[in-house]
Every structure is written in structure tokens, then in C-alpha cells.
């Protein structure tokens, strides 16, 4: 009795993939859920796992072949009947999939389904320590995958008896990573944990709690990214000990600066390192990002063109209307809505910039889903604002605000991150004056915004001081020619320097 291995659903609008690499040979024994083959698409590389245990039989598609979603690419013999691989699930923070209690009064904490084709995660940070009381649904631990971070919540109230995986360990979907002991007399577990007494205030995945003075000093002196340091203190706080231990085990990483000068790790050497080098494994997120960046560079003929914008008109508009705006719409009027609207106008005029190369075809898109890059403790993520042409300024601001918050809280879903047609990236918040942003494949262009800096400029024959911003448009020259790229940027500049154009669709 044999079971077929099928190409699973790979993501919206993905209809086929290329067999990248078979991980098992014909005749190999395979366990259920063991990865069998890597499939490559233009967006992701996906592993297909064995739907059953058994022996890998005939392979129906060779490496390099293109296969369609649903195609049968092999079979497994002599397996017990099993379900097909779990259907695509959004990587939101699901309730932990618990195996039944393994003995009187204990409940296992398992690694939940993480998302289509995501088979493993790394333990990022334990939010509760052994011996601490936990309430039902209270976040216990943060898991990191190559797309998102998510929290696993306590499946029962009780005391965290054991952590069975340490921070940094790789764990598979379904693995048991901890146990909660629920014994002791009958406290009802249905309590909606109003205020668990150990004064754990807001869930620790929220923006990192304030750093204590010693931690502040160490982080500043050693140029550390506090978000990357495992915290064992109360409420998810960092203690001095946490920082010292982190420095002993890893070299200090520079704080991410998208295109600013000196990406070199300029940090002074941490206290007393035995060796002159430290080797630290990359997180899945970083591996994935590295891979995609290289893909972008290797695939596209990427160039960058520059222009500058006089922000004074936009700032004047903001100043004039910001209070009324906030009063009416309940959200601050920022710059991003202007940029998004300007981008939509320009994209409508220059459709190639909104397009995508797909094999020998160019896909021109009639919708405008714009990604807005957000820096989170886990790294850079680019959630997408859908149908920007249909949204008003307030709606855009609200959505960006919400996506940013969810990004920092580690709550973005896979759906939030895929399918954009164009990207906005703001290096200005870090102080960047000018940069060459890298494309976000499979998009064909990305607009880089930078620091607004007062500069003397010539208007006519007069020298005046204006708040200026350099704009950079990196684009794929295979689909966008130079004239189109330059014109695109000029259109953006015009819209921003004269916001009335946005009103009149000019």
C-alpha cells in the first residue's frame, strides 16, 4: 500500500515550482514529517515532508524539473495511513497544540503548526521560567521561524515545571518543549487570568520593558541590540547578568542601519573573551533574508536613480491640518500617507514600476499593494498595505500604525508579508541621508526615503534654506527603463512638493 507525495499549495498565485534537491534517495527509510525534497519557487523555498513513514519509492520528478501544484512527485511504500501534510495555516500565535497530559496533573506544551511548509522553529526567548506560575493562555515562549516570530501560550494554568528546550534550540512542529504542572488543589483553570499576582504586567512580547541603568550602560557601551539578548528578568526584563552572559557567548552585533555608513562592527571588544573569534549560528530569519537579498541581486539588473524633494509644502500642509486630522480620524497625520499616495499616482503613470517579471512574461498589476518596511527587534519586516489606491490618508496611517505595532509585537502573519507590488523603505529614521535600497523580490522597484535635512538650495537665483529629502529609486532595469525610473521619481517629487496634485490626480 503506497502513499503519493504531492506538491503542496505554495502560496497565492504560485502554480508551479522547480524540484531543487531531493533530500532522500529511492529506497531510503523515511519517518513521518521528515523532509523529503526541496521545492523552489520565485518567492520561497519549500520543503515537502513525508506524509507517512515508510520507504521512499519511485521518484517521479527529477532535480531541475518544473512541477505543478498538486502533481505527484513520488511515493512512499508500507506506511501507515496518515493525513496529508497540514494545510497552510497563518503563522499567528495559535493556542499551543498540546499532547494530552502525560501524567497526573501535568500538561505538555507543544510546538504548534507554524505555517505552510514551515517545519521547525528556534526557541527565541522563554517568557516564563521554571517554577513560575502561569495562567491559561499566558504567553510562555517566543518561537522564531524564517518569516515570523510567534508566541506559544500556556495550554493550562499551573506552574511551569520544566523547559525541555533551551533558547537557541531548533524544535520541530509538534515537539514537546515544556510541561506545566497543574496539581495542587482545585483552582479552576477557566479563570480569565485577570491579574496574575507575580506582577507580570503586560505580556513580555510587547515593546521591550525599560532597561535598568546597568543594562542601559552595557548596551550602549557595546553597541548591542537589546532585542536580541535573552532576558530572564521579571516581566521579560533584561538583567545585567543577562547582558554579560550574552556578551560572553556572542560577539556584539552592530545595530541595523539600512544604508548608513560604517556597517562594520565598531563595538569595543566585550569583557574578557577567551578566543579572538566567536562563532554564532544564524537565525532562520537571518538565513532567509540573506538568501533573498542575494537572489535579488543576482536576478535583477538593479540600478538606483536619485532625486531630491523640498518637503516644505508637505510639512506646511501637515502643520495646518494635523490637529483637525487627528481629531476627526483618531490617528496622527504622518508623512507615510503622503508618500503612499504619491507612489500610487506615480505607479499609475508608470505601470512597469508596479510590474513583475515572470519567466518570459511581464505581469502588469492593476492593484497597488505597497509594502512599508518596519524595523522590529527581530529584524526588518515589510508588511503590505493592500489596495492603496482605494484608501484615504487616514486609513493608510491607521493601517501602517497597526502593522508597525504588530510587527514589533511579533504578531504579523504570513498573509501580511506577501504579495506586495511596490515597497517604501525609510532609512531616514536611522539618520541615513542617501542610500541604494535593495529590491524586494519579485517586485521591480523600491523607493528609499531618507532623513529630512535643512539645506541651502537655489530657487530662481535666490539661496533659501529648505527641508530637503533625498529620494532613491532602485529598480530592475530588465523591466523598467531609465527614462521610466527617472520620470517615476520626478512624479513622486512633484506630488510631494505640491500636494494639490494628489487631490487633482496630476
Amino acid at each position: 500500500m503506497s502513499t503519493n507525495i504531492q506538491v503542496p499549495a505554495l502560496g497565492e498565485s504560485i502554480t508551479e515550482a522547480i524540484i531543487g534537491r531531493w533530500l532522500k534517495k529511492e529506497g531510503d527509510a523515511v519517518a513521518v514529517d521528515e523532509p523529503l525534497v526541496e521545492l523552489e519557487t520565485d518567492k520561497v523555498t519549500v520543503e515537502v515532508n513525508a506524509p507517512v513513514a515508510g520507504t521512499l519509492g519511485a521518484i517521479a520528478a527529477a532535480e531541475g524539473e518544473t512541477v505543478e501544484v498538486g502533481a505527484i512527485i513520488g511515493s512512499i511504500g508500507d506506511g501507515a495511513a496518515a493525513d496529508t501534510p497540514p494545510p497552510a495555516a497563518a503563522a499567528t500565535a495559535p493556542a499551543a497544540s498540546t499532547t494530552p497530559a502525560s501524567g497526573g496533573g501535568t500538561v505538555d506544551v507543544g510546538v504548534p503548526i507554524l505555517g505552510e511548509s514551515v517545519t521547525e522553529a528556534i526557541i527565541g526567548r522563554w517568557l516564563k521560567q521554571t517554577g513560575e506560575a502561569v495562567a491559561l493562555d499566558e504567553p510562555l515562549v517566543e518561537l522564531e521561524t524564517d518569516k515570523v516570530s510567534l508566541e506559544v501560550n500556556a495550554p493550562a494554568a499551573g506552574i511551569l515545571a520544566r523547559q525541555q528546550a533551551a533558547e537557541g534550540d531548533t524544535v520541530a512542529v509538534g515537539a514537546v518543549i515544556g510541561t506545566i504542572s497543574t496539581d495542587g488543589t482545585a483552582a479552576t483553570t477557566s479563570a480569565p487570568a485577570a491579574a496574575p499576582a507575580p506582577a507580570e504586567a503586560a505580556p513580555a512580547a510587547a515593546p521591550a520593558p525599560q532597561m535598568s541603568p546597568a543594562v542601559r550602560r552595557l548596551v550602549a557601551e557595546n553597541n548591542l541590540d537589546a532585542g536580541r539578548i535573552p532576558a530572564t528578568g521579571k516581566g521579560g526584563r533584561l538583567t545585567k547578568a543577562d547582558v554579560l552572559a550574552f556578551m560572553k557567548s556572542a560577539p556584539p552585533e552592530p545595530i541595523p542601519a539600512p544604508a548608513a555608513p560604517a556597517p562594520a562592527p565598531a563595538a569595543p571588544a566585550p569583557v574578557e573573551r577567551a578566543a579572538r573569534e566567536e562563532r554564532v549560528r544564524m537565525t532562520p530569519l537571518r538565513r532567509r533574508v540573506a538568501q533573498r537579498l542575494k537572489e535579488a541581486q543576482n536576478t535583477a539588473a538593479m540600478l538606483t536613480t536619485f532625486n531630491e524633494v523640498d518637503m516644505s509644502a508637505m510639512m506646511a500642509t501637515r502643520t495646518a491640518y494635523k490637529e483637525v486630522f487627528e481629531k476627526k480620524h483618531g490617528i496622527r497625520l504622518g508623512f507615510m500617507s503622503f508618500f503612499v499616495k504619491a507612489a500610487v499616482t506615480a505607479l499609475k503613470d508608470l505601470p512597469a514600476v508596479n510590474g513583475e517579471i515572470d519567466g518570459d512574461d511581464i505581469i502588469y498589476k492593476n492593484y497597488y499593494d505597497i509594502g512599508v518596511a518596519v524595523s522590529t527587534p527581530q529584524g526588518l519586516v515589510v508588511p503590505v498595505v493592500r489596495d492603496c489606491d482605494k484608501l484615504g490618508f487616514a486609513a493608510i496611517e491607521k493601517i501602517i500604525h497597526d502593522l508597525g505595532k504588530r510587527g514589533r509585537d511579533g504578531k504579523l502573519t504570513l498573509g501580511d508579508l506577501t504579495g506586495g507590488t511596490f515597497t517604501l523603505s525609510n532609512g531616514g529614521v536611522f539618520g541615513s541621508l542617501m542610500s541604494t535600497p535593495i529590491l524586494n523580490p519579485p517586485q521591480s522597484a523600491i523607493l528609499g526615503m531618507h532623513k529630512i535635512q535643512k539645506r541651502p538650495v537655489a530657487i530662481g537665483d535666490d539661496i533659501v534654506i529648505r527641508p530637503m529629502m533625498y529620494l532613491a529609486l532602485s529598480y530592475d532595469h530588465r523591466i523598467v527603463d531609465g527614462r521610466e525610473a527617472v520620470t517615476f521619481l520626478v512624479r513622486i517629487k512633484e506630488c510631494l512638493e505640491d500636494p494639490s496634485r494628489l487631490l487633482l490626480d496630476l
Partner: protein
Amino acid sequence: MSEKNFDLVVIGGGPGGYVAAIRAAQLGLTVACVEKRGSLGGTCLNVGCIPSKALLHSSHEYWTALNKLAGLGVEVGDVGLNLKTMMAHKDKVVGDLTKGIEFLLSKNKVTYIRGSASLKSATRVAVTLSDGGKESLDARNIIIATGSESVSLPGIKIDEKRVVSSTGALSLNKVPKHLVVIGGGYIGLEMGTVWQRLGARVTVVEFLDRILPGMDGEVSKSFTRMLKKQGFTIRTSTRVTGVKSTGRGATVSVTPAAGGDGEDIKCDAVLVSVGRRPYTDGLGLDKAGVSLDDKGRIKTDRRFATNVPGIYAIGDVIAGPMLAHKASEEGAAAAEIIAGHAAMVNYNAIPGVVYTDPEIATVGKTEEELKAAGTEYTIGKFPLSANSRSRVNDATDGFVKILADSASDQVLGVHIIGAQAGNMIGEAVVALEYGASAEDIARTCHAHPTEMEAIKEAALAAGDGAIHA
């Protein structure tokens, strides 16, 4: 016999019991609190913390008036002592506070039942009412918070007139010429301080080789010196073999703890403060099947549950330091657990305070405990003689000592001797709760001029060095 139904019955209305009752009521449970004393507040409010602090305050004022005011330019003429008035003040404070607790219970809709409770089963409490009559309470949960009582030494009878426990020591009707305090723990030293300030000669007799056993060794040693300077006679490693009381006075017979010739100490009053035992008399624990440990304390797990489901116990009647604030923490936690929340008590961060002069306050580990555990630690110590405010107030006896982990700088213990120690220790407790390092404390701004700056300086001393010493 009337029957009543409650989500929770708390037996005992002391700092453990009444706090548990109020917290449970806040969380929506129906609660009854049974207390047989005739007033709420337990040992603490009635015959412990509060009356002793009232007398410590009054006696301190008397002593200051007698000894210090003239030097400050305040001329008061002849200073006299009216002990009756002093006691009346103490009684008034106690009365006001116990009534205050009654008000709190009623405000939170806790049913206060005056009577003596005993367990009929895991869900039934029988009460013999103080006014007469009986009541039976159906309880879904029970918290036993019956506290503790003084113990004496075998063969030594306490009459609460000449040979007194701490209770009697709070109400002596005249200042003894010579008071012998048996037991060099905090209760004995505090009561000794009261009477010494009021003019008594005080001799402390302690069986172990130091007073305040259990405290950091350097603290006991330093404090012994301070007491001796104040005029106390401290006899350590001395065993009491008997106490005889006559109409005119008392005699305390002692021998060296290691053996040797005995001696008789003549005195006018004897305070027996050798410890307290958990109080479970008449509770009917055997009826309900509740187990005790070998020290007579009710056995509980870390969620304050006894071996009988639905019955919990907190405070002096279970293991742990016999402190009012420990009982209150446990009471609140037990109430939250019963109401279905997660709660715990962090026993590493419970402060201990001795309200003598100067005060002593500590939290966390002693040097002896750290040495025994093999933990490497650094010491940051700062004398109050170098603290401006202490100099201004002419209260320079004492120091702040911070013990921090050598590797991580995490604060492991803080020990303070000083006039304001009881207040100062609060900062150390918060620091311990948040896993602070000594550097964190050193880099936190402390107001000037206060005694609190001594804490910052001690923290600095644990690192690169104090600024002001």
C-alpha cells in the same frame, strides 16, 4: 443553629487572615472571617507589632527629651514619665487600628464572625459564638490563619505580672529597675529597648553564641557592641535553668551553655522571649484530616494547600519566618489562587526588621548563607557616619552592606543597621524582586540629603568605590 454558605471561610483575623479575606472579596468571592479574640488584627495589631512600635516610639521620645534636646538648644526643664498616659496612647492606637480593620472587612462585605472556629470536615466549619450559641458554616474553601503564641522554657511559668511574655511586657505597670530578657531575638531586644529607654537596667540572656541568631554575623556583632554602649548587659552562650518569682522580685538562675557553675541574677521583672509556636489548639485538624509537620506547623505546598483539598493555611501557623508581612503576602496569594489566578510568594525577598535603636533591616542572603552555598560575592559597605543626613540627625550608628554576586553583580542580600533601616530596606526589596545589580542601584538617583544615599554609596562600594568614603 443557623447555617451559612460561603465561597471562603478564613479562620483567624490577623494580618494573614484579614488580608486573605479582603483580597478574596475583591475577587468576587463570598467570605467569612472568624476571630475569637474580640478584636481583629491578630497578634500583630493587638499584642505584637503595633503596641510594641507605639511604646518604642514613646520611649524614644522620652529618651530624646531626657538626653538629647538640651544639646540641640531645646530647654525643657525636668522631664518626667507618666507611664499610664504612655500606655493609654498605645491602647488608643491599637483600638483605632483594630476598629479600622473591622471597617475594612465591612466595606468589602466580608462577614466578620466573633467566635471560635473548628473544622467539622473539609467543607464545614463549626463556630462557637463569643456571644453564646453556635453556627455552622458551609465553606467551599477554608484558609486557616490561626497564627502563633509565645512559648516558654520548660519549668518557667509565665504569670504576665512579674514573669512576662511579650504580651505582659507591653503592659507593665511600672518601669522595672532591672529587667532580665531571656532570649536575644528581635522580640526580646525590642522590648528590652523600650524599658531601657524608660530607665530600666536590662540584661539579655541568650543560649546561642550570639544575639539575633539567623541574621548576618557582622550585623549581630556590630549591634551587640551598640547595645553594650547603650548600657545593655549581653550574656551569650548562657543557659537559663530556672526562674523564681516572689512578691518583691525575681531571680533568674543561669549557667554557661557549655556547662559550669551556676549563678543567680536578681531582678524585678523577667521577659521570656524564646520563641513562638504555631497555634492550632481546638481547630479540629484531626477531624478534617489535616497533617502537621514535626514542628507542629500545618503542612502546605507552594500554593498554600494542605493535604486536604479545599483547606489552605498561611501565616505563622505554617513554615517560614513568623512575620506579619509574610502572612499578608501569603494571605493575598492564597485568596488569588482560590479565586483561580496564578499567585506565588517570593520568599527570597521578604525583609526582616528589628525596631531597636538603631533599627536593623535585612533582606536576602547573609554572608554565612552565601559562604555555605559556595557563592562568590563582593561586599559593598558604607558607614552611616559618612552620610550627611545621619550626621545632621546625630544618628550615625550603623552601616549599609550590600552583597552582590561576583560574576553577575546581581544583588543577593542587603543588611542595614541605622535609625531609618526599616524604611530604607524597601528599596533593597524592590531591587531584589527585579533582579537588580549593584550597579543598577548605584546608577539610580537618590535624593540628597537622605539616609537613602548610604544605599547608593554601598552599591558604589561594591563596584568602583564609594564617592563619599
